[in-house]
């Protein structure tokens, strides 16, 4: 459905003059935060790790540039560290931050839902009828779920009988409440989809966090990990060691256990059924809904292909896509850290493009991911990716990556510092 058909002529005329509609000021009216004429208008859709970072760096590096950030939620709630909330070691307030820092920089933050993108007219439509005109658009929509292949899952999620907990927020709270309400001796089952999915080590960290809670509060309970993959997908040896050293008799790991159907809190697999007290299903994923409705999805019907020098979509000119929604370069993880790095490549490139100058021909991105295996012990995986001009993609530098030698408490403190630093970096805290 094209939103152009909903756009009456009068509204288009109004847009052409740059006037505000429905009480929402257009990007062109936003404060530029500096003197001199604006070099352009950038609208950012999505205020997560990618979008917020992009907005902040556009303003920091671009100076006189109109930046509008559209985000549906009133606050940012971090997926990284949210497994500590699930485990009862942190509270929601610890992973929630506001957008005031971005507003103070002169970024216009609009709490709202984007319902359509008109790439030809360079306009974004908002729920409620407002529109935002842009010179360059950034779409950082994260992921949405593919529940069609798993019978009963969509309704089980919709009725809160089953949780995904893979977007931090009310789902995190719900999962925690279900675990608290579960009787000792109960079973928590965690279904992991086939790769690729958001945050490769995240499910195994979650298993550890739930098990750490059971170990002290409900020692007769079990954590059953139903992995659709043939093995642990990240930090394998370190997680296997954690399962054995800390959670023997609590965590049971099953490879090649793809979820087929959900009935109540029973997980139906290929060969058997698992009756759980708390069923947590991480569904298969694709680029967020707005990427699909804007016809940006052009790889495997799931992801958005991008030009890695600019993060511009290969499907639509003038639209830059960040983070988990992209079809990744080889060995590039879907992580908040990587989305932040994508955002910096995009911000630098967009400023150059608006000025009519050449973009950086040698960008670098890197990833660091910390996972808690106990409330204090952490393991990491890291990698550095340099742009390869011949193959026009990012490639991992040999020897630049790796994992912790062993779980340790020093990295437990670094993990929390990492969170404070990246939240401050993206939200200008």
């Amino acid at each position, binding site marked *: 459905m094209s939103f152009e058909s909903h756009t009456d002529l009068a509204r288009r005329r109004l847009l052409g003059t740059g006037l505000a509609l429905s009480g929402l000021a257009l990007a062109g009216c936003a404060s530029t935060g500096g003197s001199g004429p604006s070099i352009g208008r950038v609208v950012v859709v999505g205020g997560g790790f990618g979008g917020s970072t992009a907005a902040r*760096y556009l303003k*920091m*590096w671009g100076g006189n540039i109109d930046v509008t950030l559209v985000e549906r939620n009133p606050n940012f709630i971090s997926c990284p560290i949210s497994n500590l909330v699930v485990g009862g070691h942190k509270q929601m307030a610890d992973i929630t931050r506001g957008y005031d820092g971005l507003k103070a920089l002169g970024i216009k933050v609009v709490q709202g839902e984007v319902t359509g993108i008109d790439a030809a007219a360079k306009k974004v439509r908002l729920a409620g009828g407002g529109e935002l005109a842009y010179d360059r658009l950034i779409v950082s929509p994260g992921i949405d779920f593919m529940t069609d292949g798993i019978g009963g899952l969509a309704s089980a999620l919709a009725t809160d009988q089953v949780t995904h907990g893979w977007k931090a927020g009310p789902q995190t709270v719900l999962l925690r409440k279900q675990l608290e309400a579960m009787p000792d001796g109960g079973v928590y089952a965690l279904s992991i989809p086939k790769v690729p999915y958001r945050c490769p080590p995240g499910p195994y960290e979650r298993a550890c966090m739930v098990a750490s809670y059971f170990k002290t509060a409900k020692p007769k309970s079990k954590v059953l990990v139903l992995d659709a993959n043939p093995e642990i997908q990240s930090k394998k040896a370190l997680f296997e060691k954690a399962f054995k050293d800390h959670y023997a008799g609590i965590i049971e790991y099953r490879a090649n256990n793809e979820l087929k159907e959900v009935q109540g809190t029973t997980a139906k697999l290929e060969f058997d059924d698992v009756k759980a007290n708390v069923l947590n299903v991480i569904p298969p994923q694709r680029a967020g809904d707005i990427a699909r409705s804007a016809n940006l999805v052009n790889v495997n019907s799931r992801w958005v292909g991008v030009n890695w020098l600019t993060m511009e979509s290969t499907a639509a000119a003038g639209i830059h896509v960040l983070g988990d929604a992209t079809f990744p370069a080889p060995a590039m993880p879907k992580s908040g*850290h990587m989305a*932040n*790095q994508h955002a*910096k*490549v995009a911000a*630098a490139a967009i400023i*150059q493009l608006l000025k009519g100058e*050449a973009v*950086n*021909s*040698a*960008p*670098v*991105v*890197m990833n*660091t991911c910390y996972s808690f295996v106990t409330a204090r012990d952490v393991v*990491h995986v*890291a*990698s*550095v*990716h*340099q742009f390869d001009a011949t193959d026009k993609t990012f490639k991992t*530098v040999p*020897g*630049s*990556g*790796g994992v*912790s030698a062993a779980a*340790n408490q*020093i*990295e437990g*403190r*670094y993990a*929390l*510092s*990492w969170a*404070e*630093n*990246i939240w*401050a*970096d993206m939200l*200008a805290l």
Partner: protein
Amino acid sequence: MKRISVAAAAAATALLATPAMAQDANLARNLAATCANCHGTQGAARGEMKPLAGVPADKIVAMINDYKSGNMPATIMHQISKGYTDEQIKLIAGYFAAQQPKK
């Protein structure tokens, strides 16, 4: 003759490489931004992370080289440091050295 041509080629490469590097005035800034997730925006780190803003460039370069060689034990920087070329490390170090340390 052969020796001369090799030297000439090396000189030509150096001449080509230098302006190409210098062309992008934002390269140091862009490279240093890859460190900000842990070491803070423009090197103003919080918590237990090492602040880099205002640290002399030669000190940063020496630290990175020690991480790369294994002379300085690390939890993670012995891996990440190997992802950047010596030229990139110099640019990053120069950028952080020029930033105001957080008070």
